[in-house]
């Protein structure tokens, strides 16, 4: 049996599709969907098991994970703020509260960094139920300094006096 013409046409079509796909991947952008990520973990750097209460003026040990998938190295900082339900950040604007602490990191493309931190917790304007907010900021020389990435983590905690 010699090579059937229809089978040959199908094999040829498959090779053309595979070749076109390979060329598109080679010439396309290195990272088609660039993104950054921030994660909130417990003091063992694992998900879950976050403290529900904290003594006023004490520190809560947590772990913050920051990942860079922008396709190039970047300079980040995590800004810690104590907030209430009314002053939470959203994807376009950060929390209006004052920054309590900051942690900086330079990450290469595809790199992740874990920060083991102690976040001070205290009552805020008489509120015993406060929110620990961790915002991710990125430095851009063209954008004139630090800018909010729109990514944040928060969790509620009860302050015990």
């Amino acid at each position, binding site marked *: *049996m*010699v*090579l059937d013409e229809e089978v*040959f046409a199908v*094999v*040829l079509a498959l*090779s*053309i599709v*595979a*070749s076109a796909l*390979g*060329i598109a991947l*080679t*010439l396309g952008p*290195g990272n088609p969907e660039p993104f950054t990520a921030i994660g909130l973990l417990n003091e063992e750097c694992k998900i879950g098991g976050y403290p529900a209460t904290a003594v006023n003026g004490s520190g809560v040990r947590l772990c913050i994970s920051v990942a860079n998938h922008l396709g*190039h*190295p*970047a*300079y980040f900082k995590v800004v810690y703020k104590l907030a209430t339900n009314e002053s939470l950040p959203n994807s376009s604007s950060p929390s209006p509260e004052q920054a309590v602490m900051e*942690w*900086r*990191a*330079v*990450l*290469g*493309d595809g*790199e992740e960094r874990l920060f083991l931190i102690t976040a001070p917790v205290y009552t805020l304007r008489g509120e015993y139920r406060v929110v620990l907010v961790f915002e991710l900021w990125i*430095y*851009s*020389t063209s954008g004139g*300094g*630090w800018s909010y990435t729109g990514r944040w983590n928060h969790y509620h905690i009860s302050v015990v006096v």
Partner: protein
Amino acid sequence: MVLSVRLWLTPVLVLCILLLAPMLTARTEDLDLEVAILVDRASKLHSMGVNTTNVVEKLSSAVEAYEHGDFEKAWAHLNEARKIVEELEKGAGEAYSRLLLLKVATVALLASIPIAVYLLLPRAYLYLWFRVRRKWVVRWPPVGTR
């Protein structure tokens, strides 16, 4: 006496803090800007196919030293990072040409696959077809029909 010392010491301390605070802030801003400029230069090198792992490591060390309050060490790491970036920038053109050449070669190789399939597949198939059957004996007319 103790009270009077406290009286004049407190304004002096407040004045010191007020004078030092902008200096510290300026120092932070300087470092941030310096790190960001080097990160930008490293990003450009990265897009040209240069390995920037060493620069990122040095910049991370600088930021870490700064976070621990060791400004001198932070600036030392920054200077080292700057030197590495300058050295990498010298060879960046060559690395970029290599990257381009590699891309062109990959595209040429991928584009040649359908042509190779079109030209070689029937020949290869026939070659294998005959090779598999090379020990076959053809008798004509078929046995039993004579």
